[in-house]
């Protein structure tokens, strides 16, 4: 079995749900194989999107090219600009992304798969890498719980793995 990029529209993969969409920055921009095009969130968190492979796949590696950070401090900026990163009371980190997967034919029965806190990078695209062993899925659901800023861009979802079988 050949390892391919499973997350391309040209391979039949689809984004079947996205909580927000600007006509100019549609969710399809995440799976067009081009990291200069992107999807943006358009406000209040959480935000999510669901990817459907239309087949059973086994995922080995997942890369997320995105931007979750707050831009550099500016002069005369509105209140709060540049306040240092601090954890909210109770120590629970609420910023971050969670990926869930499903093996069903329909986008149902999602189980929690991985969860990751965000790191703060400035003015630079982030590359989040995830490695898997139990990577069987038909759908993936990405939940952006919240970020450092009001808006987030996701430029590319790259998923390395193999096609296992078609949906029956």
């Amino acid at each position: 079995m050949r390892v391919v990029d499973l997350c391309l529209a040209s391979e039949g993969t689809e984004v079947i749900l996205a909580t927000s969409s600007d006509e100019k920055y549609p969710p399809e921009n995440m799976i067009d194989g081009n990291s200069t095009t992107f999807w943006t969130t358009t406000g209040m968190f959480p935000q999510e999107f669901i990817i459907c492979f239309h087949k059973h796949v086994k995922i080995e590696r997942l890369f997320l090219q995105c931007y979750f950070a707050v831009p550099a401090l500016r002069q005369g900026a509105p209140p709060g600009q540049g306040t240092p990163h601090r954890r909210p009371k109770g120590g629970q980190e609420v910023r971050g992304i969670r990926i869930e997967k499903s093996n069903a034919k329909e986008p149902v029965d999602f189980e929690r798969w991985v969860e990751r806190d965000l790191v703060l990078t400035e003015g630079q695209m982030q590359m989040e890498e995830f490695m898997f062993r139990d990577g069987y899925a038909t759908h993936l659901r990405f939940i952006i719980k919240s970020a450092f800023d009001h808006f987030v861009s996701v430029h590319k979802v790259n998923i390395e793995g193999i096609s296992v079988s078609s949906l029956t």
Partner: protein
Amino acid sequence: MVKLAAKCIMAGDATVGKSSLAQMFRSDGAHFQKNYTLTTGVDLLVKQLTVPDTNDSVELFIFDSAGKELFSEMLDKLWEHPNLLCLVFDVTNEQSFTNCAKWLEKVRVQLQGSTLPGVLVGNKTDLAGRRVVETSRAQEWAGTHGLEYFETSVKEMENFEAPFRCLAKLFHQLYRERLELFHSLV
């Protein structure tokens, strides 16, 4: 065309007119609450505004709470991840103005590093004879804190939409700025 969604929090002392302002805006001036009732719990008011000269709109989710919760846990939860701030004081009440600094501090704690576009609203301008906070003073304070300043009389239905229109515009501007930033990433 895009529809943005913003969580807007109402902050300020009790009785300055936060709930009146939010409700007046929500109902397009249809009702003014004559009798004083301290807001119990939380009110969520939703209203969509179009951004002038664009096909875009901003849906404001206005979270209003009673001022007595200044230091409560509930407020922490309610104020999680705000996108916009509407800070209100009463122009006839000196303390409600000086307390704005405290409110701003309280909001900052929630921000965790991000910006928060906001407006300062001096309400109850109809009570001209009892006015103690002058426009210039409020304007200056707002300016030093990066807030736009508005004066309203919810009672006289004066200018009550302006602060929210401004907030929608600020949020839309922020979105446009971020788009540019996203485009510049490599």
